[in-house]
C-alpha cells in the first residue's frame, strides 16, 4: 500500500513538472553583449525557405545572435500562434502571415511598437502595419496582384499579347476573345479562383474613395457584374463547378486550362518550380499589370494600382532588454537591401523593390524576361487588401457571404450588396 502511494505521488510530481515546463518559455534577457537567441515563427519550413534565408543572412552578419525557427501549421497558423501568445510561450519574432491579425495582436498588447526601426525610403507595405500612427511590424515581403498569361494559348487563339494598357473592360473583352479563339479545346479564356479577393481586392483598391470600413459596398457592383458575365459566357469556369471539383489555380494555369490568371506575385516562384519539376506543362508565359478601374492609371507610362498584402515581422511584447535590441536589429535587416536581394534570389518579391533587387529577381532561371513582365513586377502602387482595423475580420466575413451568394448565382448582386450593408449596420455599427 505504501509503495503504491509513493509511486502515485512521484507520478503526480512528474506530471506537474512536465506541465509547468510547457508554460513560460521566454528565457531571461541575455546579459549585455552576451550571445542572444531569438526565436521566430514560420510555416511549412520545407517548402517556404524565406524564413531560413532571413535567419541565415542575419546570423552571417551577426555571429553572436542565433535565430531559431519555430514551425507552425500553415492552415491554423494564426489560431496556434494566438494560443501560444495567450499562454505566454509565443516566439520572440512573430511573422505576420495575415494583415488582419495584426490589430488583434496589437490590441491584445502582444506586439512591441517598432516605429523606431529604421527602414529604407522606398520600401512598400508599411501602411498595413500602421495603427494610430505607430508601427507594429516591419514588412519584408510584398506581393502584388497581377495577370499571368499563357503566350502559347494566346498564339493559338490568335489574340495579341497584352500591352499593359488594360482597363477591366479591355481585360474582359480579351478574355472573351481568347475563349472564342480557343473554342473546341479544353482551355478557357481565363481562370478566376474562388477567393473573395479575386473580385473584392481589386474593387477595394481601385475604385476611388472606396472604403469598406464605411459600410458602403456599392463599389463592388460593377466588378461583380463583369465577372458574372464572363461566367455566363463560359469565358471562364464558373464558381460552382470550381467548388464542386475543388480546382486549384496552380493546376488550371499550369496545365494550360486557362489562358489568363489573376493572381498574386507569389505564384511566380511556384510556377517556375512546378515547370522545372514537370508538375506544370512547359510553356511560355508572361505577366501583365493588373487591369485598371479606368484609363487614368492604365498604360506603361502610368503607375498601375493593385492590391496585395505584405508579410512582416513583429516583436513579442514579452521581449525586453538586449534581446529587444537584437530583435529590432533583425527587423531592420529583414527590411534592408541585403535581405531583399537574398529573397529575390529565391523568387520572392521583397517589400523593397529597387533596380538592383528587380535585376536579381529576373536573374532567377525560368522567370520571363519580356519588358511588360519587368514593368508589371517592378512598377505598381500596391494598396493593402484590407484596412488595418479591429473591424476588418468581421467585415470580411460579411463580404465573404456576399461573395459566395453572388458568385454561386443564388442572389443578384444588387440585393446582396443591400443585405451586406444592412448586416454592417446591424453587426458592426460604429
Amino acid at each position, binding site marked *: 500500500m505504501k509503495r503504491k502511494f509513493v509511486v502515485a505521488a512521484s507520478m503526480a510530481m512528474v506530471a506537474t513538472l512536465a506541465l509547468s515546463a510547457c508554460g513560460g518559455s521566454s528565457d531571461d534577457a541575455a546579459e549585455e553583449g552576451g550571445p542572444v537567441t531569438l526565436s521566430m515563427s514560420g510555416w511549412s519550413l520545407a517548402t517556404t525557405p524565406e524564413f531560413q534565408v532571413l535567419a541565415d543572412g542575419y546570423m552571417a552578419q551577426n555571429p553572436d545572435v542565433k535565430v531559431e525557427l519555430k514551425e507552425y501549421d500553415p492552415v491554423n497558423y494564426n489560431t496556434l500562434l*494566438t494560443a501560444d501568445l495567450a499562454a505566454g510561450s509565443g516566439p520572440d519574432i512573430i511573422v505576420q502571415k495575415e494583415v488582419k491579425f495584426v490589430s488583434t495582436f496589437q490590441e*491584445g498588447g502582444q506586439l512591441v511598437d517598432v516605429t523606431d526601426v529604421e527602414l529604407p525610403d522606398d520600401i512598400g507595405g508599411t501602411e498595413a502595419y500602421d495603427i494610430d500612427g505607430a508601427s507594429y511590424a516591419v514588412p519584408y515581403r510584398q506581393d502584388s496582384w497581377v495577370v499571368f498569361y499563357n503566350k502559347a494559348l494566346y498564339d493559338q487563339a490568335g489574340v495579341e499579347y497584352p500591352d499593359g494598357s488594360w482597363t477591366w473592360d479591355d481585360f474582359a473583352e480579351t478574355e472573351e476573345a481568347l475563349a472564342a479563339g480557343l473554342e473546341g479545346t479544353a482551355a478557357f479564356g481565363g481562370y478566376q479562383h474562388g477567393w473573395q479577393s479575386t473580385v473584392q481586392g481589386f474593387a477595394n483598391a481601385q475604385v476611388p474613395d472606396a472604403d469598406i470600413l464605411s459600410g458602403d459596398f456599392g463599389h463592388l457592383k460593377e466588378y461583380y457584374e463583369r465577372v458574372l458575365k464572363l461566367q455566363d459566357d463560359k469565358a471562364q469556369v464558373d464558381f460552382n463547378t470550381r467548388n464542386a471539383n475543388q480546382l486549384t489555380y496552380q493546376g488550371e494555369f499550369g496545365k494550360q486550362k486557362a489562358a489568363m490568371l489573376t493572381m498574386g506575385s507569389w505564384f511566380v516562384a511556384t510556377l517556375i518550380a512546378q515547370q522545372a519539376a514537370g508538375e506544370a506543362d512547359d510553356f511560355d508565359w508572361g505577366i501583365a499589370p493588373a487591369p485598371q478601374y479606368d484609363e487614368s492609371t492604365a498604360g506603361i507610362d502610368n503607375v498601375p494600382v493593385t492590391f496585395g498584402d505584405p508579410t512582416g515581422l513583429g516583436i513579442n511584447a514579452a521581449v525586453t532588454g538586449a534581446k529587444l535590441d537584437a530583435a529590432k536589429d533583425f527587423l531592420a535587416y529583414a527590411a534592408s537591401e541585403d535581405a531583399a536581394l537574398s529573397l529575390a534570389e529565391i523568387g520572392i518579391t521583397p517589400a523593397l523593390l529597387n533596380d538592383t533587387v528587380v535585376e536579381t529577381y529576373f536573374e532567377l532561371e525560368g522567370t520571363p524576361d519580356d519588358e511588360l513582365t519587368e514593368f508589371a513586377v517592378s512598377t505598381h502602387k500596391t494598396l493593402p487588401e484590407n484596412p488595418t482595423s479591429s473591424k476588418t475580420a468581421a467585415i470580411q466575413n460579411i463580404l465573404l*457571404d456576399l461573395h*459566395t*451568394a453572388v458568385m454561386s448565382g443564388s*442572389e443578384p448582386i444588387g440585393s446582396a450588396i443591400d*443585405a451586406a450593408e444592412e448586416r454592417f449596420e*446591424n453587426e458592426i455599427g460604429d
Partner: protein
Amino acid sequence: MATTTATEVAAQPPVSPAPPAVSGKRRRSRLRRRNTLLGWSFILPNFLGFALLTLVPIVVLFYMSLTNWNVFGTANWVGFANFERLIGDGSFRISVLNTLYYSALHIPLTFVVALGLALLLNNKLRGVAFFRTAAFFPYITSIVAIAIVWNLLFSPDYGPINEILRFFGMENPPGWLTSSDWAMPAVVIVSTWRDMGYYMILFLAGLQTVPRELHEAARVDGASTIQRFFNVTLPSLRPTTFFVTVMLTINSFKIFDLILVMTEGGPGQSTLVISQFIYTKGFEESQFGYASAASVALFFMCIIVTVAQFLLNKKRSV
C-alpha cells in the same frame, strides 16, 4: 493491484453470518469506506479527464460569456451585454433558424431511415452481416472525404445526381450546394446517409430485446405485420427510440463539421448554423466573449429540448 483488492472484496461476504456486534459494525464501515474508495478509483481516470477537459472549460465558458474577452489580456465584465447583442444580431437569428430547419429535416429522416434499415437487417437474410457493415461504413469514413465526394456528386452541371435526374426527365434539377434553397436539404441528405448506420446499430440492439412471445401472441390473434409493428415492436422499442431521439436532437443542434467542410455556411448565409456562428465569432474574429455567449445559448437550447423530451417520455410511460 486493483485485481487483488477486488478479489479480497469479493472473497469477503458483505454480511458475515453471525459476527460479534461491535467489531462487525467497524468492519462494515471499513468495508463501506473501502468500497467507496474503490469505486472512486475506478472512475477517477475518466473523471480527471472529464473535469480537466470538459467540466472546467464549461464553467469558464459561463464566466467568459459575461465578459468581452478576446484571448489576450483581461476579460472585462460586461454583464448581459453579449446576450443583448445576440438577441439583436441578425446573423445569429439566421443561424438559429437554419439550425432548427436542419434539425426538423434531419431528425425525422434519420430516425425513419435508421429504423427501416434496422428492421430490414434484423431478419435472417443471407449476407446480413455484410449489409449491416455496409450501412455502418459511412459513419466511420473521414468527414473530409465524404465532403469531397458528395460535392462532386452534387455538382449541378456535371454531377451524377443531376445527370440521373435529367435522365428521368427533370428539366431543371436543383443546384444543390450552389443554391441557397437547396444547400440545406443537400447537407441533410449527406448527414442522414452518414448517421443512419450508427442509429441503425442502436435500433438493432433494441430490436433484440423485443420479446418474441409478444409477436407470437399477436400473430395468433391475427394481427397483420403493420399492426404488429405499431402495437408490439414500436412500444417495446420505447427506451431505444427515446435514447435515439435525444441523441439525434442534441447532435442536430450541434451540427458543425459537415457544414464547415461542405458549404462553410454558404452560399451567402443559407447554411450558417449556430456552431459555425460560434466558430466564426471566436476563432476568426477573436470575439471570444461574444462567442461564449452564443455557446451558452446553444447549451440552454439543448438542455430545454432534452428536458422536454424527458418529461414527455415520462408522461407517456405512466
